[in-house]
């Protein structure tokens, strides 16, 4: 195209115009020449005619002059007249010659002039000269004569005629010439118009041709552009122009523009495409892979690798993140990493420049295709920048060449790709940090859990320790007091030792006597009853024999009882032997049945024996003592029951229900319950009846019979067996005795014994006393009638081991005397020291001087200073932050309570006061 001979619009138009102008010039020149030659001809004609006429006239005149001169001379004879004659005669010749020469081209006219000449010559000779000579000769006659026939005149006439004729011919010739000129002139005008026409035609043709060629291409262009416009930007359309002019250039330029646009569109779509492709890609590897695969597609690359910067020890490393060969990402090509400046690619990083190589370095790797290894035609290394730093590099290789557009595409993509990489790296970093922080919080969580467990364990240990400490303290305290007591007792003992030896002598003596006295008759009874029971002669009925049996066995019991009395004294003295041996419990029910059903029958009582199945058969205890206890209790039960039933229940205590201490002693514990529906025992006597040799209350002895030994023996025996007896009883309802004993194959170990000793008897009436009644420490039942402010109410007070109220100082702040009085009496009974303040101000006064106050009971509604303010001041003005202040509030108002707490109350209790509750609260706040 470019090489083609170019014919622009400008030269086209110029040449057109030039042609037209040249035509015009040519025609003007031709016309001018024509006109000029015409003019010359005319001028020549005019001059010629003029000359001819002048010459003709001159010649004629000369002739005339000669005639006139001749005549003058002839007439006058004066020579003067001859002068013009001669002059004319001389000049005539010259003029004529000239005229003659002029007529050189017209022989006809020359002919005529020849004639004139001859005629004139003739005139001169015959007329002129002759006459002159005659005159001169004065020959008048001849002259007469001559004139007579006047031949001159004839000649003259013919000269005149001849001249006229000549003139006439000349005029005719001029006429012809003029006509010719006219004709020529006409021709010229015609030629002029003809020329004009031709030039016009040429101009029209040229302009139309030129304009056509211009307009056509322009139309072409317009058409194409219109098409492109209407095709919604299909930039594939191109303008085709055949001419080679500016329009062509325009078209070419437009085509170029279209190419450019097309390219740019390709670029943009590819750009957009690639951007959408790697949108939302979360990892840099995935990003690199997507990126590379797209780029490879767009650039027809056959292999490539993508490296991302990693900073290690403050040095930049570029690590391969993706690579492919022949669009296969599995194929691993390219080196794993490089540093800045290492190799071409490293150089590219260093210079932050895009490299494109069309001459492949020798050592460059070959592209492996299916057929073998082919060197790439072109490689393209592009650094990817972010904020002026190279953060990644891409290397591409192709078997063809990278077009400008492809290069541009890559460069453009790369421009924003840095940002993408950076944001992905950033995102990855954020995700990493997030994971890390998650892991850290998780770790923290674990740690905080760990801390919690540790603190709980510690708390546990502390609790255990404090418990142990408390026990230790208690024990040391006990030990101290016991020491002191012991000391005292020791002295007393020493003092009484002598007395005692005396006494014990008496006692032993008494007992010995007693047993002797008793045993002797008893022995006879035993023997006799045995004999009777044998019923040898058959004189007795079966029933009688059975009675004899009973007498015998009861007698035996009695004997053993007597022995026991001895034993009891031995127990007292610590001298009783206990023999732990195997006991078969399976026989126990029959045995008891055997012993007690006759009594039951007699008293018309029901006698039930229950033995639970899971009771073990073999039990280690002292059988004698054990049975003794049971018999004792049972006989008591039958003794004090007039109607209803007596029940004996034998069961084993479940492991879970055993206390720690019990478990420490044995895993098998027996619980034998003897329940009756008898007269019962009043609560205040529960303890008394177990006291040894307790005979203070004769009535009791009478009422419950016996020596008062039975239950004490039971109690002592139970102890000796490692167990204890408990009692639950209500007057008029009945009694329940429980014997609890362990199975002790190895006998009783002393320190365990002590422990048990401590927890002898539990008696309680509290409704929420746990069902397993061996809670150890509630020894005394304390039923008191308490005066309660509003109504009387039975306060079931639980036993206080030590009286926490003793010597405590309680400040009552109240303005109601009845309240004060009620509280005062109730509290003083317990050994509390009471102080009273009638309002807040007094309360503060007292607290200011008195540091011994343990608790403040604070009424709210008081004159002068109410409870809220008083409490507030106690906490803030007096700075008594720890002092327990218990607010006495009116019940319904939650608001009151909140205000109390705000003011600094430790606790609150609603009015009307429930003494039970009050004592509970005081206990809570009195513990330190």
């Amino acid at each position, binding site marked *: 195209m470019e090489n083609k001979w170019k014919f622009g619009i400008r030269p086209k138009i110029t040449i057109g115009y030039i042609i037209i102008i040249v035509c015009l010039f040519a025609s003007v020149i031709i016309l001018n020449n024509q006109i000029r030659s015409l003019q010359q001809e005319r001028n020549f004609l005019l001059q010629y005619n003029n000359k001819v006429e002048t010459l003709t006239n001159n010649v004629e005149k000369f002739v005339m002059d000669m005639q006139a001169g001749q005549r003058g001379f002839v007439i006058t004879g004066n020579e003067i007249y001859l002068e013009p004659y001669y002059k004319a005669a001389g000049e005539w010749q010259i003029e004529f010659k000239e005229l003659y020469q002029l007529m050189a081209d017209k022989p006809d006219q020359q002919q005529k002039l020849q004639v004139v000449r001859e005629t004139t010559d003739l005139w001169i000779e015959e007329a002129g000269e002759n006459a002159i000579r005659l005159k001169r000769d004065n020959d008048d006659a001849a002259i007469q004569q001559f004139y007579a026939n006047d031949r001159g005149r004839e000649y003259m006439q013919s000269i005149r005629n001849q001249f006229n004729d000549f003139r006439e011919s000349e005029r005719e010739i001029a006429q012809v010439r003029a006509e010719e000129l006219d004709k020529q002139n006409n021709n010229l005008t015609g030629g002029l118009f003809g020329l004009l026409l031709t030039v016009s035609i040429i101009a029209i043709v040229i302009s139309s041709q030129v304009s056509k060629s211009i307009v056509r291409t322009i139309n072409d262009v317009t058409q194409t552009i219109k098409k492109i416009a209407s095709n919604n930007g299909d930039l594939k359309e191109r303008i085709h122009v055949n001419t080679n002019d500016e329009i062509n250039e325009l078209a070419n330029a437009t085509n170029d523009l279209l190419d450019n646009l097309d390219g740019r569109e390709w670029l943009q779509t590819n750009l957009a495409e690639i951007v959408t492709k790697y949108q939302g890609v979360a990892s840099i590897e995935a990003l690199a892979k997507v990126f590379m695969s797209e780029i490879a597609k767009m650039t027809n690359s056959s292999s490539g690798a993508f490296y991302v910067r990693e900073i290690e020890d403050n040095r930049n490393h570029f690590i391969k993140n993706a690579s492919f060969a022949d669009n296969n990402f599995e194929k691993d090509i390219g080196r794993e990493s490089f540093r800045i400046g290492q190799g071409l690619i490293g150089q590219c990083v260093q210079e932050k420049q895009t490299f494109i190589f069309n001459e492949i370095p020798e050592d460059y790797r070959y592209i492996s295709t299916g057929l073998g290894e082919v060197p790439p035609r072109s490689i393209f290394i592009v650094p990817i920048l972010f904020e002026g730093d190279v953060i990644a590099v891409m290397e591409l290789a192709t078997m063809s060449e990278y077009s400008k557009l492809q290069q541009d595409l890559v460069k453009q993509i790369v421009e924003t790709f840095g940002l993408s990489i950076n944001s992905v790296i950033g995102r990855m970093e954020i995700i990493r940090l997030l994971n890390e922080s998650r892991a850290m*919080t*998780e770790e923290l*969580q*674990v740690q*905080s*859990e*760990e*801390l*919690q*467990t*540790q603190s*709980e*364990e510690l*708390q*546990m*240990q502390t*609790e255990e320790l404090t418990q142990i400490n408390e026990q230790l303290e208690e024990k040391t305290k006990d030990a101290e007091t016991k020491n002191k007591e012991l000391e005292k007792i020791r002295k007393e003992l020493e003092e009484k030792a002598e007395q005692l030896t005396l006494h014990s002598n008496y006692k032993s003596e008494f007992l010995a006597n007693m047993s002797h006295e008793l045993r002797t008759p008893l022995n006879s009874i035993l023997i006799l009853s045995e004999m009777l029971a044998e019923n040898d002669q058959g004189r007795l009925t079966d029933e009688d024999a059975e009675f004899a049996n009973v007498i015998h066995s009861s007698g035996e019991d009695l004997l053993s009882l007597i022995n026991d009395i001895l034993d009891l004294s031995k127990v007292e003295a610590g001298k009783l032997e206990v023999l732990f041996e195997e006991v078969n419990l399976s026989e126990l029910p029959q045995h008891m049945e055997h012993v007690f059903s006759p009594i039951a029958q007699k008293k018309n009582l029901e006698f039930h024996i229950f033995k639970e199945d899971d009771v073990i058969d073999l039990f280690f205890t002292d059988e004698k003592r054990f049975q003794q206890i049971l018999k004792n209790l049972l006989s008591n039960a039958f003794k004090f029951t007039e109607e209803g039933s007596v029940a004996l229940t034998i069961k084993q205590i479940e492991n*879970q*229900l055993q206390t720690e201490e019990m*478990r420490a002693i044995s895993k098998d514990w027996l619980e034998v319950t003897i329940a009756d529906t008898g007269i019962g025992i009043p609560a205040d006597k529960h303890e008394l009846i177990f006291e040894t040799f307790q005979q203070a209350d004769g009535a009791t002895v009478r009422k419950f019979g016996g020596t008062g030994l039975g239950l004490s023996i039971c109690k002592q025996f139970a102890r000796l067996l490692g167990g204890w007896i408990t009692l639950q009883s209500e007057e008029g309802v009945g009694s329940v005795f429980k014997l609890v004993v362990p199975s002790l194959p190895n006998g009783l170990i002393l320190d365990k014994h002590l422990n048990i000793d401590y927890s002898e008897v539990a008696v309680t009436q509290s*409704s*929420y006393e*746990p069902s397993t009644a061996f809670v150890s*420490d509630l020894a005394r039942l304390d039923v008191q009638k308490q005066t309660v402010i509003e109504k009387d109410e039975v306060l*079931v*007070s*639980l*036993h*206080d*081991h*030590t*009286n*926490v109220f003793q010597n405590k100082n309680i400040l009552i702040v109240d303005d109601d005397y009845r309240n004060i009085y009620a509280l005062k009496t109730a509290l003083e009974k317990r050994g509390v020291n009471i102080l009273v303040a009638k309002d807040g101000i007094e309360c503060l006064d007292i607290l200011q001087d008195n540091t011994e106050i343990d608790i403040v009971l604070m009424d709210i509604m008081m004159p002068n200073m109410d409870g809220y303010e008083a409490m507030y001041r106690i906490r803030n003005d007096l700075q008594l932050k720890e002092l*327990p202040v218990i607010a006495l*509030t009116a019940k319904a108002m*939650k608001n009151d*309570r909140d205000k109390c*707490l705000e003011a600094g109350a*430790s*606790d*609150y*209790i*609603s009015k009307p006061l429930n003494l*039970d*509750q*009050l*004592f*509970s*609260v005081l*206990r*809570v*706040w009195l*513990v330190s």
Partner: protein
Amino acid sequence: MDKQGENMKLEEVYKQHEDLEIDFLLEAIYRLSGFDFRQYNRSSISRRIHNRMNINGIETVTGLLEKVIHEEHFLESLLNDFSINVTEMFRNPSFFKTFRKEVVPILRKYPEIRIWHAGCATGEEVYSMAILLEEEGLKDKAVIYATDMNEQVLEKARKGAFPIQKMQAYTKNYMLAGGNYAFSEYYKADDQYAYFHPSILENIIFAQHNLVTDQSFNEFHVIICRNVLIYFTADLQEQVQHLFYESLSPQGFLGLGDKETLRFSQVTEKYQEIAGNERIYQRV
């Protein structure tokens, strides 16, 4: 330097060995008693073991193991050691306050309410909940299942007698938890214990249940399991969380201890947290 390295190595080996010993011990305990501590938080278990070793003057875990196997009551006392029963009434009072504020209004709409206290220890938490429900008038339609793997603590819990020394703190907790009445209305005290009124015990069922080995036994509207999961490894926590999820009614509530969280559990998406940091979650 070298010596130190050697020491460290020795220590490591020692630790490895002890880990192994503890594995054996826990396996033995599991086989002998059925109590499965194998997935308990190792550091805690190991401290408890060392505690016991110190007390009894035993040198190695294996020594302990021997006693566990051959001495009659030793296992029992070791099991006791493993059971950390620290608890309080209205422990973390804000939990109960939030419960009152956010959960109770929803429970109010239910015709009946089943609550499970898993790992209730000596019952303080259960009594607290019962008091709260009583005050909110929900007591009669509520049934509280209080479980623990330790029978002994359950026995204590049934008694409802708590050491008087702790009552001052409990009173404070009660008040901070938004208690409506005087705390003393709920108990009577002697000089050792405060005995809570038996009426509070109504509708409370104490039962032995082991979260590791036992299954769900009902569907509950509320499950409270506080300061139990901290003794478990993450895996076991996850297992127990699934048990809870299964045992919870739709829209049911789960209450955890203040150092515990659902955040790292798989079930976390199935719950939404109620009211900030109180570890009360609602099943969604």
